[in-house]
């Protein structure tokens, strides 16, 4: 077995250390070493977006990044969205708009949406559809997801919905 090295990342504000082979994917490190299984792995080739997490402020596919590359990084995952058991506004909107069925894509959807809304203050519905196309959902047909993200974008940027 290849030697394992120590990797320390700050996940949702908490510094965590684990051991990783150089080839270990960040997704596997989060899930298997740190036991944060909220981040899901859907394709392992960077297409489906289920494993999306926010690394140093940018949404990334954790299946396309090695754990060792994330050493010292600040990472935000789905487990960090709620505070004191109170769901994040986007989580509530996902429930309201029926934006999930099986829920497998949901962690990646939420992180993709948060990155999209946080990084752009003037989103049209078309922008949201294009932005959210970074993550695949097989159940819902996306209507609820787009509606939830649109309402969230409106709230964050102080507008009545989106153009």
């Amino acid at each position, binding site marked *: *077995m290849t030697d394992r090295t120590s990797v320390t990342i700050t996940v949702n504000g908490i510094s965590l250390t684990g051991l990783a*082979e150089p*080839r*270990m994917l960040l997704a596997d490190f989060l*899930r*298997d070493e740190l*036991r*944060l*299984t*909220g*981040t*899901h*792995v*859907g*394709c*392992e*080739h960077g*297409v*489906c977006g*289920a494993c999306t997490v926010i690394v140093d402020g940018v949404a990334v596919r954790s299946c396309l990044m090695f754990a060792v590359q994330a050493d010292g990084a600040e990472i935000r*995952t*789905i*487990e960090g*969205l*709620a505070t004191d058991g109170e*769901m994040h506004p986007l*989580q509530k909107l*996902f*429930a309201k708009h*029926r934006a*999930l*069925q*099986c*829920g*497998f*894509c*949901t*962690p990646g959807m*939420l992180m993709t949406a948060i990155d999209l809304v946080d990084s752009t203050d003037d989103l049209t519905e*078309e922008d*949201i*559809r*294009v932005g*959210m*196309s970074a993550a*695949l*959902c*097989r*159940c*819902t*047909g*996306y*209507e*609820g*997801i*787009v509606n939830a993200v649109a309402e969230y974008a409106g709230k964050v940027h102080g507008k009545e919905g989106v153009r």
Partner: protein
Amino acid sequence: MNDDVRKQTGGYIGQSVPRREDRNLLLGQGEFVADIQLPNMVHAAFARSPLPHATIGDVDTEAARAVDGVCFVASGADVCAELPPINGMQVVTPQGWRDRVDTDILIPDQPLVPEDKVRYVGEAFALAVADSRYIAEDALELIEAELIPLPPLAEAETALATGAVLIHEHLGRNVAAFLHTKKGDGAAAMDACPNRLSRRFVHHRYAAMPMETRGVVAEYDGRTDTLTVWSSTQIVHWVRREISTALDMPEERIRCIAPDVGGGFGGKGHVYPEDILVAWLAKKLDRPVKWVEDRHEHILNAAHSRDNIYDVEIGFDDDGRILAVTSSFLVDSGAYTPVGAGIAGNSIAHMLGPYDIPHYETDCKIVLTNRTPNAPYRGAGRPEVGFAMERAVDLVANHLDLDPAKVRFRNMIPADAMPYEVGLTYRDGVPMVYDSGDYPEALNRALDALGGLDDIRARQKTALAEGKYLGLGIGCYVEGTGVGPFEGASVKIDSTGKIMVAAGACPQGQGHETVFAQFAADMWQVPIEDVFVTVADTGQVTQGYGTIASRSTVTASGAIKIASDTVQEKAFAIAANMLEAGETDLEMRDSGIGVKGVPDMHVTWRDIARAAKPGWDNQRPDGVEAGLESTSYYEPPTVTWAYAANVALVWIDPETGQIDIEKYVEVHDAGLLVNPSLADGQVKGGLVQGLGGGLLEELAYDDQGQLLTGSLADYLLPTASDVPPIEVVHMETPSPLNAFGVKGLGEGGAIAPPVVIANAVCDALRPFKAELNSTPVRWGDVANFFDGATA
């Protein structure tokens, strides 16, 4: 009428109750198979064939065994020495179907890991178990296997050719089943038809492609000789049955659980070799074993679907009345056919759709090839046959220069003809009777949602005058839903008075826990919070069937009702004893039972549950057994018939062939809607899968049997930006066949889109007499109609 039904039942049924499933999933606290981690657990991985058809020679596993961290390696010969193949007939058809449909069926068993030959790209020929999946995959790299190529049977027609090599030698042929049936005079009626058209229709291969791949975790407890298996499956009781058979263990010593399942859509609707192998490994190694499929492996190895060729003839009069239909079709089953004749049986039963057609004859060959096994995927035989039939209806209209919508109205079964005897037999063995509905009204409403037929045709004319191409696509279908044989449910009132419901259904995102709680809350007249629902756990319901075939709302509600009725009968007897009243004077109210008209005389379910307990000082009347619980089974008399009309307006770019869907409408009727919002989500999700299948998704093989689309970068799933504006309109004609008037709706959405798109494109390109008779509908093919042509 529907409001009356709702009033009778209490109040939750019919409401868009929020999902109880959402919270865990939103917080990242769901538990999928891949999330399960057990002490001392090891990881399995499979070596899979790169060749479609090959004899297996020497398989050398020595080097793999020597890898640090590897605890077990097995070749196919090692596996076959200990385990029997999985039964080829996971679904048995009833005698009534075999009596009425001519069948000649030879379904091959499937070796769990073959020792003699591999039959498709992706079939396992060896496995390794190690401390991590990384190490297990390292070990696979070191397995030296001699695979001696055989001629590939790359597609159905190759496999049928004279002199073709046999894929399963012992069968003596490459056909798993011949099926034949007819209605009226069948093909003989064709001679009398004033007009006849013949065409070949091809529905390509695509697949369920859930976002969670398959996966299995198993743990064996030697002390109690019990196995616990967590599988990402739609059918936990089948998995238990097949493990029991393979390992020769009593079913009751095996507990199979489907935890959160990340989509299934039929692709997880039968037992796979890995379900059994992982259980076997856990027992053999006496360690928990996990296997989670990667996406490439899923695309190669999880069941594919569709892949049919139809040769259809349609006979009709000068008014467009369809008099006779014949079809001869091939199902490319791939190397094994785990659900047997189920898909083809559906196709045979659904060809006539919502139309009153007096004569029909069909025959089918289910052909074994060197492709990945073909099993039901959302629609299961209906999208395929629907494509052929609904294209044919449009061709009839074109031939007579009639509007395709009007030809449909002329042939549709009117509402006053319900219930309508079709003259065929469903695969549950029962003569088909469409139970209720108004098919023409559905199409009317659908067209209205696009502005009405006259308006659509006027817009189309204007567009054409401007050199633009606008088309109307129509696709109608009926769908047998809620099929048997049965579903099981257990209902208990525990000593706190809470209602405990468990059902054999295995959801993958449908929201069963919520829906079943709605049913039970109304049946027991309690707040929904007092109902606790467990699904997908063989430890909770002795016999169950599972969530496939648009069946769980119908069948599980039936089982919950029978179990509840049984328990309530007892509860009334005990309450009568407690209240010293006659049972006829009692009524259910306020989370318990009370004397009619006497508010104070009331006992709660908690009171009654305690009174029902075994032991001293119980309050049961003589002859009433202790306990308030029942496990019951609902055996539906036959299927309920959902139906829909789908229409779409599409624009075609003459330069590129780009297809731009202006609006897609489905008017759908699944009887009484238990949770309208969830129903809406099911239909819309299905529609988008159907659009994906019609336009984007393709499991393409080359002529050597190699799959060319082995990643999600090649196999294109619809994204948020691919989805057109969609409107779903629900009609609610109750089914007369069950207590709640419900029908199934999980699959319906996926049935019509491919043909709606094809019909819309052909309608837009009528000036070119364009015909698109195969899927997927490719822009390039559309653009070709413009080359050198003038409108």
